[in-house]
């Protein structure tokens, strides 16, 4: 078994969630006529020790995902234009575009880019189109259960916000207002 | 006219229910008769081939087509006849007999179901 120590990471589990949400905001900021997502999903933290060995004891990997609704997923704008734009955007940003399996005939497939901070962005064009943000393995935060409420990155109605329903602490002001998908700057959490 | 403790009744609807029940009785007789013929034919074939399933099929067919289904159609007829009487005159369920259908029901409503059929039934 590979006993190399885990790589240095700049953030831990608790800090990761706002960072991932910001990554989504940054991504959609470069997408014109953004129609808004339909759903937001937070996957359960994955224990890294099982896959990577004892040296990763106390490390977890996180993943959040946003999905477009049916009509938007079928639209040329989302399926093709956004895919091309993201390929350009991520390349220009110096990200490691390590996966590009978009089929030129069908437009289906995955586009994945890893940022310098180790965060992986995964754009998938399938029956629905989705954007996921993955941390890879990062140190778990002691005593951390789940994040405090973070507003979704745009367009997600409270009833479709699966993450808010069971994967984060409830919002202090749970009025359930719809988030304006085009007001992403003001609604965004920020990590400096 | 009313049933034993009737608060309200639409006699025509009750008559319709009777007709449906008698229709079910007849339909089941027809369905089961056809099934019995085919099952008994197959039973004969397999019995001739020295298969134990031949006689056993006859046993099962007799049980189902005669004992079980006749029991059921008898009960459907019994319910229909009670309702036919109920539409005409108040009769408590516990007091009902097949004779009541022959004497109290409007037999003109049920052609083909002559009173003698009812009288031939066991007096429930």
């Amino acid at each position, binding site marked *: 078994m590979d006993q190399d120590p885990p790589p240095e990471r700049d953030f831990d589990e608790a800090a990761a969630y706002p960072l991932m949400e910001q990554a989504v905001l940054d991504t959609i900021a470069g997408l014109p006529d953004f129609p808004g997502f339909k759903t937001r999903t937070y996957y359960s933290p994955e224990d890294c020790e099982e896959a990577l060995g004892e040296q990763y004891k106390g490390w977890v990997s996180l993943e959040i*995902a946003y999905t477009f609704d049916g009509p938007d997923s079928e639209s040329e704008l989302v399926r093709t234009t956004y895919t091309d734009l993201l390929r350009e955007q991520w390349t220009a940003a110096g990200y490691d575009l390590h996966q590009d399996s978009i089929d030129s005939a069908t437009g289906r497939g995955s586009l994945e880019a890893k940022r310098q901070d180790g965060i992986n962005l995964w754009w998938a064009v399938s*029956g629905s189109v989705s954007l*996921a943000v993955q941390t890879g393995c990062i140190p778990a935060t002691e005593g951390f259960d789940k994040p405090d409420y973070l507003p979704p990155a745009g367009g997600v109605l409270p009833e479709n916000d699966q993450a808010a329903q*069971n994967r984060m602490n409830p919002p202090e002001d749970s009025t359930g207002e719809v988030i304006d998908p085009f007001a992403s700057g003001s609604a965004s959490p920020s990590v400096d | 006219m009313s049933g034993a403790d009737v608060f309200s009744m639409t006699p025509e609807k009750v008559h319709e229910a009777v007709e449906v029940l008698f229709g079910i009785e007849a339909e089941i007789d027809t369905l089961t008769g056809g099934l019995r013929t085919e099952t008994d034919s197959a039973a004969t074939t*397999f019995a001739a081939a020295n298969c134990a*399933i031949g006689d056993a099929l006859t046993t099962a067919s007799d049980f189902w087509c005669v004992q*079980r289904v006749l029991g059921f159609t008898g009960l459907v007829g019994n319910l229909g006849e009670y309702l036919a009487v109920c539409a005409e005159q108040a009769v408590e*369920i*516990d007091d009902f007999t097949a004779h009541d259908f022959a004497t109290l029901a409007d037999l003109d409503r049920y052609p083909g179901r002559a009173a003698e059929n009812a009288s031939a039934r066991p007096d429930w």
Partner: protein
Amino acid sequence: MSDMHWKDLKETDFSALKTLADRWGTYINDMTAQAEIITEDVVKKRLSVENFESETADDVRHQADLLADSLQDDLHEYAMVKIKATLEDTHDELIECQAQLLELIDVVTGEYRFEGGSSDPYVVVSDGHRERIAALDVSDALAERTGISGFNLNDDAGRREAKVALLETAEAIAAEFTEVLKAIMTRAHHADDDAASILKSIVDSPAEQPPPLGATYDDLLDDYEAADAERNAVLLQELASGDSEATATGVNDWWNSLSDDERVGLIEAHPELVGGLDGIPSATRDGVNQDLLANEITATGDRIAEIQARLDQMLADGSNSSNAEEYRDLQLELGELQTQHDNATSLQAALAAGSESGEPLLLIDFDTSSDGNAVVSVGDPDTAHHTAVYVPGTTSDLGNVGGLVGDASTLQADAERFGIEGEQTAVVMWLDYDAPDNAVPVMQDGPLYPEAWRDEQAIDARPGLNSFLEGMDAAHGGESHTTLVGHSYGTVVTGATAAEYQIAADQIIDVASPGLTVETADELSVGGDDVWSTRAEGDVIELAVDTGAMGADPTSSEFGGNVFDAEAVGDSGTGIHSGYLADGNENAARLTMAEIITGQRG
């Protein structure tokens, strides 16, 4: 008792059994329609409360409902289970026997012939064959088996000896054919006798029918309703114990034929039987099993506290020595209870964690004894457009059920995320088998091969998985699309089941498989085009694949299925083996699996 002669087996047209079974099927449908006319047309329409209102009217409606229920129960118990199913089973078995007999006849024709009665059939050398042996005009096979080259055929003595030897060989072959013939006829007689026994049992203790309207109706009604409740309870016990001939589809038919009151009565009286029975709707089983689990946690917790207090007391007053047997028995009971309690709380915690997509977790089955079993669904498989049944592998038990449900939850969330909007997907984590505890050989007076290197546990799992799939299919409200997903040893289970049964699933995905117990994908009942396999480079399972002990490598081109890529998530063979469903890491295989499950591939 069956007197079927081999000639009867040869000449009888057993397809008549299937034709008759189909005829009973049509009849059952027609009769069920008549029962529905009573409830829908008579009770709900013509005799509705608006048309007929009084206590008598209530009694009449109740009687009509009883008649309809009684007919449906009878149709299920007698017409469906005892007659139609028996005809179908007997047809299948006798057709198989007939085919074997015809094959044997084909082999022996010209050289041997059948003799004897129905109970003692045997094979003898035919007259023509004897004549050819006398003329030393025999087949190469007979000559070779006899060793004819060792005889001097150039003199009379040598030829005589050769003829005797050839005849002895032919008679030995006839004796071997006799054994084959007897085996075929014994199997046919058993099938025939079993069928006759079931069909004749129909007259044993027939169930009560509702009483007629008339004298003493009220008293008779009470007796009937008590007998009917008992009848349902007995039937439920037969179904749960496997004593009934009914399949999971039959269970579903029966359950649907019950009234709401009858269902509630059975759930209250026998929740453990209802909760564990394939064919009963998933939501019903979930409600029953969640209650049973909560009750079990309370009951085992209370009993543990009680025993612990007693043990402490015995230790304190020294009676642990004087009553050593009681002390030991209590310790043993405490150990078993603690296992059961730990398993139950682990399962409850997994359920409480919820799913990624927010879909409810349904507890479809569970057993907390020993390693424990559980069947948990993310979403309702009875209403979902797509369903995946995920069978985990080695070391799976209730101690790590949270991770297993998490894997199912990831698959389900992926299917929703990559699927088509409006098409729901449910993913069932099926751990209703004794998964191997280990995959690594240990030395104990020589190498002790681990459970995962043998297929016994997969073989044992087959009927249960097949029944579950059938029950789920029957309970589904419409056209279902089902994918059977196995991981590691779970693929041995899925493969062995699909090789043995015509499973109620459309596709198979095998992830990190040591083999599916077959050599080609076409041997699986979903068909080779619907088998999808993946294995990441460096997965430790490659060692098992190389042995071929569980069948051919499903990712090989010779196997004949579809293969898709998986990235190695993990930096050791064992890590990679368990990393396929790990979220938070890059793995395009998740997208592929979601597309297969949601019907976007193939």
